[in-house]
């Protein structure tokens, strides 16, 4: 569903500012909002679910997906204070979880560990959601 992620771009050498048209593409390079980062992580969980043969692991992954999806419902269209430490920690937690999930999809990390990271991220997001 998601476009393949690009490698982290190098800092450009004093290039002229891109025209407004270019800025419309999906925001690689920009830090995403918590809700969109959360949706990215959910997308990564779904992708890992598609690769998982073990039904127990599939159930665990699905439980995390459902929990994160429920948090997403609370965060989207809510007025959040993006400057709080909790918000930043949640975004970073989700980025780490997504990285772990993608490693698991490539078979470079265990699914169990990816689930653990997703659970940690979910706890951080829940803190922000509770304050929303």
């Amino acid at each position, binding site marked *: *569903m998601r476009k393949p992620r690009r490698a982290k771009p190098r800092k450009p050498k004093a290039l002229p500012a891109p025209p*407004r048209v270019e*800025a419309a593409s999906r925001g690689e390079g920009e830090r995403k909002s918590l809700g*969109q980062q959360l949706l990215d992580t*959910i997308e990564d969980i779904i992708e890992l*679910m598609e690769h998982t043969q073990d*039904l127990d692991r599939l159930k665990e992954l699905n439980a995390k997906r459902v929990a994160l999806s429920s948090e997403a*419902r609370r965060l989207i*269209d809510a007025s959040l204070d993006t400057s709080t430490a909790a918000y930043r920690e949640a975004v970073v937690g989700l980025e780490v979880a997504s990285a772990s999930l993608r490693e698991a999809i490539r078979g470079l990390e265990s699914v169990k560990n990816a689930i653990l990271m997703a659970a940690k991220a979910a706890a951080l997001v829940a803190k922000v959601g509770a304050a929303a």
Partner: protein
Amino acid sequence: MHLVQRISPRQDEVRHSPWSACGGARAVLVVLAMLLEACGLTVQQQAAVGQFATATRELATTAQEEFRQSRQDVIEMNRLRLELGDPTADVSHLDGLLTLERSRERIVALRALEGYADLLGKLVGTVSEAELLEAGNTFVGSLKQVKGATLSDQEAEGIGRAVAAVGGLYVEHKRADAVRQVVESSHASVVAVTDTVKRDFDPNSDFWNAGYRQTALALKGHAVAIGPVVPGNDLASQQGVQRAKTLATENVARSEAVSAQVIVLTGALADAQENLRLMLTASDLNVQQIEYLSSRVREFQTIYGLLRSQAPR
């Protein structure tokens, strides 16, 4: 003396001519008309305002259509989740995060933008006094309902007065005054509306676009979760699972394509609005941004028609 003698008879003729008073008045009127025309909009300015109005109206109506269609998509995806037995799908909230209230806010804002374009179009076109006044009232009324719009009562009155002053007379300087007044007084509100639309379609923000994506992922996630446990001989369920995955993928891909276009267009509209403001006050005529907006909107109409399977308007 000689000169006086030669001139005198002519002066006498003028003094006693029955046309003298009328001729003087005519001359004054001609000079006045020339002065008034000079304060009016040039042909190029009128064309640019008309072009801006058409593009803005088309963009506003298409964006309204997309808000309605995307809400319908969410309802359809949530229905499918229920059919597939998703326990987290809520039959009483089929529209998910794209609620009626959230949709209404957006449609109201875009209607105000449409009203703005309509009024500008009428101010540079030829319509009756009644139509013009109605367009002015509709625009001011709809703008006052927009959440976050900053039109003060004084500005609203100013627009009303300027439009009423044009009346059916179409005196060029009155028309120009009204266009300037409408553009200037509405500027902050127009920018606020375009910012809201842009934010809603921004793939990095947590608004409309995120609500849509959340439902699509919930549908796909459930389909992926139940896929392996659907019995091999239950072809109907297998088909349902496959349909859910396809629908979610298709909808997200279309939403991304439409969002990318809308973001470009709202940026172009904001630039063109600024350009229009400058163009109406400065003698320097630069309609580049307006022409860019106009061509992009036409392109978008075609793309949107294809994505939503509609004939381009």
